[in-house]
Structure formats: structure tokens, C-alpha cells
């Protein structure tokens, strides 16, 4: 009886807001937007958790973090232990607490969410992970080496998660990364203002402490190949090379000066720190008017980055309506607060340039939503004669990425699907080649950080079983 009273009370306590930088201020700096909970607020939020005996939230987490357990530790004020519990399942909790779409994962399953607001699991994860990172004590004990060696291609979320679990199982892991720094999309794609790069590097340093070796500047497919790795003594290989091939739409003017792929635009800004030019040597530039084509998270990141680089008008150009936008609602709202403008139900038809072949304007066509198609989705239909031209200086194409073919084309016998993604077993993530596993965006196509991490963990378990049976 008293327990039920307690539960009813908890349902009524509203979820604690995340303190953020003011939109007007943050739109002009690259500092992190969300500031994080204070210990007091974290404890209060943690106390909202009902500590369910059969927690649904864990089912919603692709890496099965021990959610009620770590939240209980926060409620008790034992932040260090909370951070340790988090690390048992998640090698990069400070990252996940920031970039996971919790509303469609763990938090969507929270019982409190039925009648009230779900527990802010992501914000608590971030709080505990940040605490663990600062104290530096939340490390896991070393295990007995198995003598098996695993090569991982790609140091993005899938590869790092896979490496973490394999190291915990006692296997010797070497990651081969093409860029000069590990982290993949966490370093080159997601902006500093959403995910500070120092945090990514601290999490990666923890992995190294667990014995994971990371070799940068190694373009597999060029400097070595999957077959060579297997010949050179690796007992298994995991391919986690992601979806790093930018798609460009087929309209005139895409090679003009001022047209970027989102990958280039974000890589220059984030990885190369172009926003600090000329202290850092890589330039990145935007004009007064910037159009971002697309409406996913990458488009929101690009638009908000353009604003911070000094653009006056930044437009998202998207052929469907706000309701169909693939971006997270939180990212969309942040973009709106900061002053990003939206051209919805609008599709670009051409980019015009001046005599120097620099972008001058963007020509678009207005759309309306037509009848529902076979899938029940109302598809956008162009409105005849609705063409209009907007002055533009910079265009960022953010309509998606495909699998980079460098590794797949240099690996004979690897079965791919029509889109060029690797075909892997649903359970073990083993590919058509024995001992070669794959996971993350290279298998699924562009998805989320946490799904890639989930795939990395799944592959680690598949690899572990494979090595033990060998």
C-alpha cells in the first residue's frame, strides 16, 4: 500500500530540465549547448526511478545498460559506483548520454512515461559518466589474456564498442583507423557544441588503458587488406567502416565553389577545427546565406554549425513537412531556437553560379503532400509553376551517406547487398567470409551511434564464441 502511494507520488514529480546555454548566446559559440545536471538535481531525478523488478528501460537500450542499478547509485549519492556500473555494458557512456535518441529507446519504455514523464535516463547517464571521467576511478579490472588477436577496421562507435567488449573478454585487440584520430563520426561528424571532442578522446583513452591498441593513419584497402590481416596472425576481423560516402543529388551546379557535402563541411569544422582558423590551419568558410539540403540530424548539425561560423541566414530545405523530418525533435527545436529558417515542402532544382563559378543562388520548387502511397505515407508532389530563386552563397548537401567501398572492394569473397552494404548474419554478425565480422552503418546503412555500438557489442559476442569454438 505504502509502495503504491510512493509510486503515485513519483509519477507526479516532473522530470528535471536540462540546463542549457541561452539560444542567442550559444548560436555564436562552439561551447556545449547542454550544461549537464548538478549533483543535487541528478539525485532528485534519480529518486524518480521506480526501480522496477523487471525493468523495461533496459529492453529499449541497444547495449543493455544496467539502468535501474546505475540510477540507484546516483540516488544514493554514490556517483563513482554509478559510473562503474554504467561501464559494465557501455564503453562510451559520456558519448551515449549526449547523442542517443533516448526518447525512442530506453526512455520510451520507462513505466513513468505512461502517465507522466519518463525518467531522464540519458541525462543521468551523462551525469554519472562525466563524474566517472573526472574522478578517473571508474575503470574495470584487467582480465586473463586468451592469446587470441582480433583486428578491427574503423575506430567509430561500432569498432570502439566491439573493441571494448573483446578486451573485457581477454582478447588482444588492434584497431586500424584511416583518419589521424580515432572516434569516427564522433570526431568528424557530431559538432563540438553537442559532443565535446575532449570527452570522446577521454573515453577512447580509457579503452586504451584496457589494452586496446589503436593505429591511426591506416587506410585498410590500401595499406593492408582484410585477407592480409588474417594471414598475418589475426584470428578474426571486424569491419566497422561506417557510412562515410556522401551522396550528392543530381541537380546542376553541384560542383560550384561553395557547395559542400555535409561530411566535408563538418569534417573541416570538427575534426580539423576549422572554426579556430587560422590558429588551426584548415579553413572552412560560409557566406551570408547558407542552404542546407536535407532534414536529418546531419542537416541540423550542419545548419547550426553554419550559424556559428557567422552565416546570417541559414535555411533548411526539405521536400516534406516538419512532421516527416528524420531529425530528433530535440535537435530540431534547438535549431529553431537558434534561428535556423525552414523552407519546408521545398525541393532544390538547380544551383546557379557567378562568373567565378561560385554559388550565387538556389532555385527551388514548392511541393504539397499528395495522396497516401502504398506505405500510407503522403508523398510530396511538386506544384507546377511554383519555381522560385533565393540568393545563396553556400550550399551544404546533407541528404545521406552510403558505404565507403575502400574495404569492401579490396576484400574478395565478401557478399554485399545492392546498396553496397555488407551482408552479415543477424545473430553472430559474421559475413560470408569465415572469421570476418561486420556491423554498424557498413551493414545497416546510415543509422545512429547507439545502434552501431549495439552492433559492435553483438559482433564482439559473436567473435568471442567463434574464437572459443576455434
Amino acid at each position: 500500500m505504502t509502495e503504491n502511494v510512493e509510486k503515485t507520488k513519483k509519477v507526479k514529480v516532473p522530470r528535471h530540465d536540462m540546463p542549457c546555454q541561452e539560444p542567442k548566446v550559444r548560436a555564436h559559440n562552439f561551447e556545449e549547448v547542454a550544461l549537464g545536471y548538478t549533483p543535487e538535481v541528478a539525485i532528485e531525478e534519480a529518486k524518480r526511478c521506480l526501480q522496477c523488478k523487471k525493468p523495461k528501460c533496459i529492453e529499449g537500450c541497444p547495449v543493455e545498460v544496467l539502468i535501474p542499478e546505475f540510477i540507484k547509485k546516483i540516488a544514493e549519492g554514490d556517483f563513482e559506483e554509478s559510473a562503474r556500473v554504467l561501464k559494465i555494458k557501455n564503453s562510451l557512456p559520456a558519448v551515449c548520454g549526449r547523442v542517443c535518441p533516448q526518447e525512442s529507446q530506453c526512455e520510451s519504455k520507462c513505466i513513468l512515461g505512461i502517465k507522466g514523464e519518463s525518467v531522464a535516463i540519458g541525462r543521468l547517464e551523462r551525469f554519472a559518466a562525466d563524474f566517472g571521467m573526472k574522478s578517473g576511478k571508474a575503470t574495470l579490472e584487467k582480465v586473463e589474456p586468451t592469446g587470441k588477436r582480433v583486428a578491427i577496421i574503423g575506430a567509430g562507435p561500432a569498432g570502439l564498442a566491439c573493441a571494448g567488449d573483446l578486451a573485457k573478454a581477454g582478447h588482444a585487440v588492434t584497431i586500424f583507423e584511416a583518419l589521424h584520430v580515432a572516434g569516427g563520426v564522433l570526431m568528424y561528424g557530431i559538432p563540438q557544441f553537442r559532443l565535446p571532442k575532449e570527452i570522446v578522446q577521454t573515453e577512447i583513452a580509457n579503452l586504451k588503458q584496457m589494452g586496446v591498441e589503436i593505429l591511426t593513419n591506416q587506410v585498410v584497402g590500401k595499406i593492408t587488406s582484410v585477407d592480409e590481416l588474417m594471414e598475418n596472425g589475426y584470428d578474426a576481423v571486424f569491419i566497422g567502416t561506417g557510412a562515410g560516402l556522401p551522396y550528392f543529388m543530381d541537380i546542376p551546379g553541384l560542383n560550384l565553389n561553395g557547395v559542400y557535402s555535409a561530411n566535408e563541411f563538418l569534417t573541416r569544422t570538427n575534426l580539423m577545427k576549422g572554426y579556430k582558423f587560422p590558429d588551426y590551419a584548415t579553413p572552412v568558410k560560409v557566406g551570408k546565406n547558407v542552404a542546407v539540403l536535407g532534414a536529418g540530424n546531419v542537416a541540423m548539425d550542419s545548419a547550426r554549425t553554419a550559424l556559428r561560423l557567422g552565416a546570417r541566414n541559414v535555411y533548411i530545405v526539405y521536400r516534406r513537412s516538419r512532421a516527416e523530418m528524420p531529425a530528433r525533435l530535440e535537435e530540431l527545436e534547438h535549431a529553431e531556437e537558434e534561428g535556423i529558417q525552414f523552407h519546408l515542402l521545398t525541393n532544390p532544382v538547380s544551383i546557379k553560379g557567378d562568373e567565378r563559378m561560385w554559388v550565387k543562388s538556389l532555385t527551388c520548387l514548392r511541393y504539397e503532400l499528395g495522396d497516401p502511397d502504398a506505405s500510407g505515407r503522403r508523398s510530396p508532389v511538386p506544384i507546377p509553376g511554383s519555381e522560385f530563386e533565393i540568393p545563396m552563397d553556400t550550399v551544404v548537401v546533407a541528404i545521406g551517406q552510403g558505404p565507403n567501398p575502400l574495404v569492401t572492394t579490396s576484400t574478395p569473397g565478401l557478399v554485399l547487398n545492392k546498396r553496397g552494404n555488407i551482408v552479415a548474419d543477424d545473430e553472430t554478425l559474421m559475413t560470408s567470409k569465415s572469421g570476418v565480422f561486420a556491423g554498424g552503418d557498413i551493414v545497416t546503412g546510415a543509422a545512429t551511434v547507439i545502434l552501431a555500438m549495439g552492433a559492435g557489442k553483438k559482433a564482439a559476442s559473436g567473435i568471442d564464441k567463434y574464437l572459443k569454438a576455434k
Partner: protein
Amino acid sequence: MYRVVKKRVLAPAIALLEVDAPAVAAKVEPGQFVIVRVDELGERIPLTVMDFDREKGTITIVIQNVGYSSALITAMNEGDEFQDFVGPLGVASEIENHGTVVCIGAGLGIAPIYPIARALKEAGNHVISVLACRSADLLILEEEMRAVSDEVVVTTDDGSLGLKGFATTGLAEVLKHGHNVKVIWAIGPMVMMKSVADYTRALRIKTIVSMNPIMVDGTGMCGACRISVGTETKFACVDGPEFDGHLVDFDLARKRLDYYRDEENRAKARMECKHEGGHH
């Protein structure tokens, strides 16, 4: 880290650096390139490989001081180290026995044409090389090119050495002698590659050029290096850097090189005002 084991100054503002990079040296082929980054604050810049020694584990690059990063690199000495040195990148040149081939290197382009000429020679071709530069003091690697060529024609813009004229003058000289030229490689400034391609288009001689657009990652993930080839857009870093010169849109490629001109000047000016040849 990737240490400079040998340095040679080839001409005013042009340096040859032999860099310790065994894994790259084990795999590189003529026509490929590397991406280097000098230090933590540095940008990634592409450099076509001039030579490699698989046994010593070294890669040789030749670079001219034209801006911020190239100033830092040409100022490097033996024992200095690159923060990052990635490769081999790009598709290797298609080397086979074609019969008679012409290798045109203009200015700094003589460096990347060298390993191609050598490989073509080793494959049994009759190699005629055309070396073009502004003036006699800027001619680099002449001895090396003579060692891998059957014939060499030198041209200078000012006539201070060899024929007075441009790369096309040298090519015309070669063709005048009735050689049955099957393939031409032309590497150098965009304007030179365009004029060679224009010249050979009418003659229907297959002409391969090596494009040097702006690059960032060099692995096909950003498209900064995209160029128009025929009706298609190609990424020079993974589809090239070599392309059919008769299909490349050189005007667009040249204009794309200018996109960061203001920023490049700013970076250079900032470095010069700090202290000459200084480092941040």
C-alpha cells in the same frame, strides 16, 4: 611519427624529403599519393609520391613553398617528423608495354612523373620525356629523368635552357619526328595539362593527366576533391588522381582551386608576420 631521413634542396623554394614510412613504402605504386599533416594544428595536404624504397622503408616527396603548410614542410630538416603521413592513396598508374609513350612533367610535376616514367621504362616502353619549366634554375630532377628515359626534351618559358616555349612546344617537337606515340602522361599545373589535352584531342592520342584538387581526408568520405569528367562527377582521391585528359573539365577544376585563396593568404601572412619561416 614519420621522420625525415634525407633532405635535398632541388631549386629555390623546392625541397625533396625522404620520409621514414615503411608500411606505406611496402605498398605504394607509381601514380599514388600520400596525405601529410605537419603537426597538431596542421591541415591535411595531398602530395604525389616521387619515389619509394621498399627496403629502406622510405617515401620521397617533392614540395614547393607556395603557402602556409608547404612553407613549414620545405623548412623541415633531417630528423624532423611529420605528425601524420597517410598512404598510399588513390589508384596507381596503369603501367603496361604500350610501345612508345611520352611523359610530360612541368615544374613541380616532374617529381610525380618520375616514378611513372621509370615504371613505363621497366615495362619495356620507349619513353620520351618532356621536361618543362619557367627557367633553367627551376629545372628539377633532370638527371633522374634522363636515367629512366630513352629521349629527353627540355623546354623553358624564357629559353634559358633547351627549347624556348611550353610543354606543348616540347610535345610538338617529339611528334615532329614521327614517333608512333600511344599514350601521353602529363603532370603539372592545371593550365599546362589543359593545353596538352587540347593539343592531343585533335590528334586522338590518349592523354592521362594527374589532377591535384583540394583534398581533406583523401579516402572518399567528403567529396572536396570532386571534379567533372565527361558527364560524371568523380572523386579524385579514390577514382583518380589520374583521368582521361580529354574528358576533364579543367576550367571548373581551376576555379575550385581558388575557393580558399583569401584564407590561404591570411594563413601565410600571419605566419610571415610572426617570424620568417617560423612555426606558429
